[in-house]
């Protein structure tokens, strides 16, 4: 129509103008900098930087770069290495430790790391009773640590604890002056939440909560050696497949939360190195041994034999089936232990002996809402229970609610899935946390108790002779399997991806996703 010709002209001109200006706009380029910044992709946020309060692998990752502990753990199998303490000695009975601090060690404000600082830090940790204090609960108290001289610290344990050097890497030393200056009314917790008072090779450059955290290497770190990084960025990417894609495209150098499907997708991609290693991280389904139908040991055994372990392994991908309560490969583990396998006949035998010989009941299971692996395992259990004519009601819940439900046996569901991470490479870590009755009412060991097992665990903690210690743990595992308090599940392998230009990365099967930046370099 004629009258619209001019209108059309306007429209046409506007469109052309728009198209031309877009084409002419310079393409955005990533700034090529002489900086060497390592980008790490994780789906965990770091809401709190207080080394004596924060927990979680993301916090540990950043804290171990911002702060220093007395000793480190490195390598596969994990070995204790000097750090703030250049050497230490242990008394014959294993109760007294003497640490000699490295003279070069200094805080970010230039002041030296003294024995005073060590005592202050341990005292604060014990006083607050938060964060990693549980690792030394009952072992170290406010009288244990004493200053011998400016560079020597003595720690006297309240009870024997052979694994003590292995927990030290998670107990960080803070700068007493800075913390005291900003003590406030809560022992410095508010200030340390977002401020750093450490001696680490890195300091916090920028923090965008929910998005990213940037660390910057200090001008002259007191530690010698190390890689060529000038900084590192902890980037939060929630979806693991997006983490994988970021590494593929070079937008990130490391991805920490990858699934088996992600690793498969990365198999032949150029420039990417896959790290799939066994780790001491167990997954089991805890059974409510104190309340409900599962208090009946025959029913528990029936379910243990009906469970489809192969399906669990298939859906876990890169993993191994657990052989008993301790992770495969850890000191004290008995690879020849006799554990339940999928055997429907045996299952039905036990079922016949139980209080519900024909099944016909409904059991409940909770799992962490959003945790895909747990959902899969719940469905494997549902499918397995069908063969015993038992129904399963699956309830996704948020973790705090799940934790609250373990407070007493009647609040706990029948099945409770648990990942136990080995924070330190010693069997005591899992044995104590997961099977000692003092942990009842906690998510790690909600209800199971057996005085025989308790005694064995405590004996294992104290025994200094390696051979005797091994025998104690073998006995403990046998007893636990007898009691059938868990469905022993899988040990998922740790799955990480690195760009091929990342150098210096050594896999340690303890907290391997809490990456230490100092030794790393970018080509």
């Amino acid at each position: 129509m004629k009258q619209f010709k001019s209108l059309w002209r306007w429209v046409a001109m506007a469109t052309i103008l728009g198209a031309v200006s877009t084409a002419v706009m310079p393409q955005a380029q990533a700034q090529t900098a002489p900086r060497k910044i390592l980008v790490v992709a994780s789906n965990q946020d770091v809401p709190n930087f207080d080394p004596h309060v924060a927990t979680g692998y993301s916090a540990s990752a950043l804290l171990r770069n911002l702060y220093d502990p007395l000793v480190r753990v490195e390598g596969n199998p994990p070995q204790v290495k000097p750090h703030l303490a250049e050497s230490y000695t242990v008394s014959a009975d294993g109760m007294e430790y003497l640490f000699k601090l490295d003279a070069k060690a200094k805080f970010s404000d230039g002041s030296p790391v003294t024995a005073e600082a060590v005592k202050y830090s341990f005292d604060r940790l014990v006083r607050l009773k938060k964060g990693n204090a549980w690792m030394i609960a009952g072992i170290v108290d406010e009288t244990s640590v004493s200053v011998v001289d400016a560079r020597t610290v003595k720690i006297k344990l309240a009870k024997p604890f052979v694994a003590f050097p292995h927990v030290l890497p998670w107990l960080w030393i803070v700068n007493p002056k800075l913390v005291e200056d900003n003590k406030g009314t809560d022992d410095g917790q508010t200030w340390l939440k977002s401020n750093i008072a450490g001696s680490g090779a890195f300091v916090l450059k920028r923090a965008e909560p929910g998005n990213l955290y940037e660390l910057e290497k200090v001008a002259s770190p007191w530690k010698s050696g190390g890689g060529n990084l000038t900084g590192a960025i902890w980037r939060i990417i929630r979806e693991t497949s997006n983490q994988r894609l970021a590494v593929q495209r070079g937008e990130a150098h490391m991805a920490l939360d990858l699934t088996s499907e992600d690793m498969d997708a990365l198999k032949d991609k150029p420039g990417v190195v896959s790290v799939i290693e066994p780790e001491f991280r167990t997954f089991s389904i805890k059974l409510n041994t104190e309340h409900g139908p599962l208090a009946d040991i025959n029913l528990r055994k029936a379910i243990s034999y009906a469970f489809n372990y192969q399906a669990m392994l298939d859906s876990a991908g890169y993993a191994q089936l657990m052989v008993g309560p301790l992770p495969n490969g850890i000191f004290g583990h008995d690879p020849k232990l006799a554990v339940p396998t999928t055997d429907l006949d045996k299952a039905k035998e036990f079922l016949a002996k139980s209080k519900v010989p024909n099944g016909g009941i409904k059991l409940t299971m909770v799992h962490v809402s959003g945790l895909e692996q747990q959902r899969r395992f719940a469905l494997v259990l549902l499918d397995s229970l069908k063969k015993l004519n038992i129904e399963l009601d699956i309830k996704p819940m948020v973790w705090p609610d799940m934790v609250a439900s373990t407070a007493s046996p009647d609040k706990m569901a029948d099945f409770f899935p648990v990942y136990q991470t080995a924070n330190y490479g010693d069997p005591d870590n899992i044995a104590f946390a997961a099977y000692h009755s003092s942990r009842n009412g906690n998510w790690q060991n909600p209800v199971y108790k057996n005085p025989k097992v308790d005694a064995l665990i405590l004996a294992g903690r104290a025994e200094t002779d390696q051979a005797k210690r091994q025998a104690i743990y073998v006995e403990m595992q046998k007893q636990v399997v007898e009691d059938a308090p868990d469905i022993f599940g899988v040990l998922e392998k740790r799955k990480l991806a690195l760009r091929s230009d990342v150098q210096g990365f050594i896999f340690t099967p303890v907290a391997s996703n809490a990456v230490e930046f100092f030794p790393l370099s970018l080509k």
Partner: protein
Amino acid sequence: MIRFIVRRLVLLVPVFIGLTLLVFTISHVLPGDPVKLAAGPQATAEEIASLSREFGMDRPLPQQYWHYATGLLQGDWGQSVLTRRPVAADLKIYLPATLELVFAAIFLAILIGIPAGLLSAITANRWPDYLTRILSLASIAMPRFFLALVLQLVFAMSLAWLPLNGRFPIIDLPPPAITGMLTIDSLLAGDWLAFTTSCEHLLMPALAMSLSPLATITRMMRASTLDVLQQDYVLTERALGLSQSLIILKYVLRNAFSSTLTVIGLYIGWLLSGSVLVETVFDWPGIGLYATKAIVTQDFMPVMGVTLSIGFIFVLVNLVIDLLYGVINPKVRYQ
């Protein structure tokens, strides 16, 4: 005119009070125990009791409300248990990110919707019109989160034309934060590169969000333009010597303006409330993700904070729109 504005502004006060009362009531009616959550699973009964006193939870409800409401006015929107930061500080970080997304979505909706509606009206009942109408219907039915995934799949994963997620490339420092919206801050800082790269990151999420308002604007423009084309006053003004195109442009522009206002008023709540659906897909650190995390961990203060912010923004935006209607259509002022 002034009386009109003042009257509307004064009416805001009871609305805001009502909102805070409503949100406070809802949060206390819902099951959940924020004190137990804050205390942590290992807390003893005394610790829970003392924390309860600290939060003021042991006081009677009306007193708690008063404390909360007066706190809001002073800028104290409570503390997040999870992040252990004041909610107001968190909102300052996350709200601009979502607002940027919402503004961009509205911008795209107007940019594409108005010409599309015009086209549809001009070619009424021929194939461009049918196509546009079908696309509009499809756009309203399309779930934002699915479209976001598809866009990401095609343009980021397969073709690698656009960035995968986030607001800005990681290694580079964003422009100094003045508004918190990267596009605007880039322009203010004169950093053209930062501007284009922010736009690249903004494009897919904004597009996914814009589809519903876009469809509505298209429909409205089509209807109102068809109206205009058939009106008598057009003929009259033609007789008076004005050129045809200019006449139509005048009325069309006025309709475009009022359609835009209407759509913004209709969709601002929808856009802000549902931003989480697109934010999750693109790891966009906005209030949607912030609120969802808080909801899932039963962290009440952030949820209340986000709900109130969105409510306030909704009321304010609609107020401004009403005022603008008053400007373009004087009859409205005297209602």
